[in-house]
């Protein structure tokens, strides 16, 4: 019976560990930032792989998260709703820019603060934006300046194996 107690305790311990990690994952990886933040919107021409939950940073320090991404049906611009830390007041001429965490990792929104005297109000909009850069499109336009790069937009490794670039899909 004593052994059963130990096993029972271990069982609860395992459950508690799992629950703890799950809660941590949901709070960190889940949608939305801290409660009590304020929302601003930013319109981008291209959000790339930006998704709800991505970080919003100023000078590399996380100040909020992307809470929602929708498409404006009239202008065809992507509207990102950013939930920001209430302590962080952004000047009204700040610039929001979508940048990569790394070459393959996710993307986040970096905000470069401006110099204006007035701040963006909750519910306001960041007017100056710079959308995501299509990295492979960029690579393609460097590799094949002639312009038929659209044929193989993802063949990143192809040139090393096949410098003549006659066969775009050299898999």
């Amino acid at each position, binding site marked *: 019976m004593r052994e059963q107690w130990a096993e029972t305790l271990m069982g609860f311990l*395992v459950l508690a560990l*799992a629950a703890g990690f799950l809660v941590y994952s949901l709070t*960190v990886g889940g949608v939305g930032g801290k409660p009590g933040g304020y929302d601003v919107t930013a319109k981008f021409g291209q959000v790339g792989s930006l998704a709800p939950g991505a970080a919003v940073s100023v000078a590399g320090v996380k100040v909020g998260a992307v809470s929602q991404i929708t498409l404006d049906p009239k202008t065809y611009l992507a509207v990102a709703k950013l939930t920001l830390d209430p302590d962080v007041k952004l000047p009204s001429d700040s610039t929001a820019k979508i940048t990569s965490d*790394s070459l393959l990792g*996710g993307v986040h929104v970096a905000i470069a603060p401006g110099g204006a005297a007035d701040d963006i109000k909750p519910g306001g909009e960041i007017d100056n934006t710079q959308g995501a850069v299509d990295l492979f499109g960029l690579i393609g336009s460097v590799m094949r300046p002639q312009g038929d790069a659209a044929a193989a937009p993802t063949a990143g490794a192809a040139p090393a194996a096949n410098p003549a670039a006659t066969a775009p899909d050299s898999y």
Partner: protein
Amino acid sequence: MAAADAALPAMFKPVRAIGRSTLGALRMVGGVGMFALRGVISVFSPPWFPIQLLRQLVAIGFFSLPVVGLTAIFTGAALGLNIYTGGGRFNAEQVMPQIVALGITRELGPVLAALMLAGRVSAAIAAEIGAMRATEQIDAMRTLSTDPFRYLVAPRLLAATLVLPLLTLVADIIGVAGGWLVAVRILDFNSTIYVRNTMNFIQGWDVGSGLIKAAVFGFIVALMGCYHGYNAKGGARGVGRATTHAVVSSAILIFASDYFLTTLFTHA
């Protein structure tokens, strides 16, 4: 018949041996099938024994948590290290969270939980029922007009089938936590980004297909334990043989059905 046997030349002996073992194997497959069918029928038909079911749920499910948790955390950690090494060959160390999550939820979570259950539960069931068979308790039960299928087999089948998906869910979470621990503590990943990459990447079906697998595995584990225990012959040695057979056959069936279920899921 005996006369005909004697009349056959000795050269037919190997042929007869092959035939005998083939028929024996077929009979065993049929026997397991019949046993499973009787088990399923007795799960769905009264009288039920809720106390027995509850006891089995605790014995099979709750008391397997430590074993499953330990297996999952070490597997997740080792998987993480290996994928980090492998990913490094493509300069793609950053995809580690996604691959660890996929590997754990789709494959390793259900299979490892099922294997631990095969070792822990299948053997225990076979030993328990086998000992009852050896001491003629099962016959006694029948004379007292209690159906051993409904009293012994059905609660175990149902409990294992219900509980293994839950154990797998725990194994999934702890396995990912194992990978996360290695990534954050040893490989200098950012904890937040690791978790977020995992959460964004994982889809419901990754976990769901693993849970369906787990239910099938749970049924297999309990079925093998019950079958080999119920058909144990020859006292203590028979019980020992039954436990070995139960573990080995449930492990093999888990791997085999894992492949077929995965094929089914990827083509569905």
